[in-house]
């Protein structure tokens, strides 16, 4: 199986008032066409920064400090700006959490959905507008064509996210990166949007990276899962295996902290003691060591190396096995 995306040893560093922060630290993963990889973690784990770095959207303060990102066999970490723009619009699409802040409030929905079609596909105005109507229909916006002349504020949160998906799909991307795409939406609308994304990516045979904090969403939509903690992927595995037999103490703690629909009455949740670490003051060894119930001597001296087993599970922990 050739990878659509191959990320190796990727590190991202931000300049801050408190010095350089390593937000993403030697992260490696790959993604095949048609596959959905979920990257999960809590605030500050580096999951969103990982996604942004793939598109070169780190802003002024951040930079890729090491590693490579190969997309379709080509390293896209340092391509010329023009080429990145072409790949970004054409082959990699991104969907963010807050559709209102990603849509331009003074342009009609039709103008905004048509724009990438004109820019990347070279369609004329009328052609692009007709294609925009088709796209809105595909993402199940009721009365789609009549709504091309509406403005974003006429749309509900769920409908705006459908518009974002329509724009993302305009150029039939090979890779879709969705960063908490439904976190701002109600649960019934969330199910509609994620089902839609899943079926459209299946139709296009695109790969999807789903960034989320919600283990329920992961369980329903992901083929594989990577768990991040303090900038590193500490465990990754096929979704079913990760849920049925989590190995890293942090993954186990995260699962235990999650209230499940099947849990017992008023049972106490198995919590992780303490607070997430401060990225500016990480310990020398494993970043999870101060909260880990199985911590041992080696954990405090150097971060554990990532080991891959026969089943494709990757684990960074001294204490396993």
């Amino acid at each position, binding site marked *: 199986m050739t990878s659509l995306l191959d990320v190796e040893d990727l590190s991202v560093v931000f300049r801050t008032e408190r010095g350089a922060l390593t937000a993403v630290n030697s992260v490696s993963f790959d993604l095949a066409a048609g596959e959905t990889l979920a990257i999960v973690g*809590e*605030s500050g784990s580096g999951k969103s920064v990982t996604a942004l770095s793939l598109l070169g959207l780190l802003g002024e303060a951040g930079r890729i400090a090491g590693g490579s990102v190969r997309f379709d066999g080509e390293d896209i970490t340092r391509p010329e700006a023009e080429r990145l723009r072409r790949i970004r619009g054409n082959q990699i699409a991104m969907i963010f959490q807050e559709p209102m802040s990603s849509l331009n409030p003074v342009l009609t929905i039709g103008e905004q959905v048509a724009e990438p079609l004109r820019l990347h596909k070279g369609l004329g105005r009328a052609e692009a507008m007709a294609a925009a109507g088709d796209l809105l229909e595909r993402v199940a916006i009721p009365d789609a064509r009549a709504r091309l002349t509406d403005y974003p504020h006429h749309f*509900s949160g*769920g*409908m705006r996210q459908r518009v974002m998906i329509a724009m993302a799909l305009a150029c039939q991307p090979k890779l879709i990166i969705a960063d908490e795409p439904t976190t701002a939406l*109600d*649960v*019934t*609308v*969330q*199910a*509609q949007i994620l*089902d839609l994304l899943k079926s459209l990516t299946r139709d296009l045979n695109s790969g999807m990276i789903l960034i989320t*904090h*919600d*283990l*329920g*969403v*992961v*369980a*329903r*939509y992901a083929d594989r899962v990577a768990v991040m903690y303090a900038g590193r992927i500490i465990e990754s595995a096929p*979704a*079913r295996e990760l*849920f*049925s037999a989590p190995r890293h103490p942090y993954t186990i*703690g*995260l*699962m*235990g*902290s*999650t*209230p*499940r*629909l*099947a*849990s017992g*009455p*008023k*049972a*106490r*949740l*198995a*919590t*992780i003691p303490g*607070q*997430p670490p401060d990225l500016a003051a990480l310990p020398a060894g494993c970043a999870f060591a101060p909260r880990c119930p199985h911590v041992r001597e080696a954990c405090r001296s150097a971060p554990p190396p990532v080991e891959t087993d026969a089943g494709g599970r990757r684990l960074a922990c001294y204490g396993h096995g």
Partner: protein
Amino acid sequence: MADRMESALNLERPGPGDGDLLRVEDLSVHFPVMGGGLLPRRIGSVQAVDGVSFSIRRGETFSIVGESGCGKSTTAMAVLRMQPVTSGRIWFDGEDITTWGPDAMRPVRRRIQTVFQDPYASLNPRMKVGAIIAEPLEVHRVGDSDARRRRTADLMKLVGLLPDMAERYPHEFSGGQRQRISIARALALEPDLVVCDEAVSALDVSIQAQILNLLMELQERLGLAYLFISHDLSVVRHISDRIAVMYLGRIVETGRRDELFSSPRHPYTQALLASAPSADPALEASRSAVALAGEPPSPRNPPAGCRFHPRCQAAFGPCSSRSPELVFEGDSAAVACHLFPPKA
């Protein structure tokens, strides 16, 4: 109007004062909608809460669950008397407090406390944490300053904070610790009822678990009742004794936790449960796709009849014209759906 009268008369539960700590009967909260023009005038109203009834016993957790705009937070605000009531009644510990003024409410306010979603917004950034927790004690003139300091230290220990953190400011704390501060303040006056409005929604899951455990421990130790407002079904299932599901201003179903989750009757409850993903890939793989199409209509112009009928796959004859009553079966389970008519 007529069917609201009916639903009030239909309550089979006995009158107030029989052990219910809080009892809300036929509560409605309507917001005026003002028209533009030179002289703004009222051109309609949003029926944010429309004929809601429920009760909470001592030491019990009662949750209201629903999506944005269903009226769950407005219901909580009305109970707290932070939101004017359009009609209906609110009893607390056997007394009708619906129209009580600020002076009469003062002793009641000691006994009903709140924990809100956003501990960043609800803690005064210029006050030290010790002063924040002691503030309710000062406002209600409880004890002298030494006694208040001792009580503050005890409260901080109770919620898992170190007493020597009292001299710090809120910004020095993480989100989970700030929610502990909010809880300590809420407990300062030994309330009977704590209203938790999305109290764990902004927290990361590992921190959320710590706070949920803390809330359950405090309930056992102090005999607190919770009115727990949340959109998160997993959390609600975890913490509740009884649950009400709201849709567009009305309770569509209520019941004990296990009954409601194992055999939901209202089609909206069923759709809501089917939409919420559970952290279990095997269970998720066995589910069908989209549970519910469309989005809730505006509460400014709610559909006639059952408010859920335009989205309901089971809708039939009476649903578009007649609003179903909330029909009790036994003492706690009730559903408002024409599929389950009152027994003759």
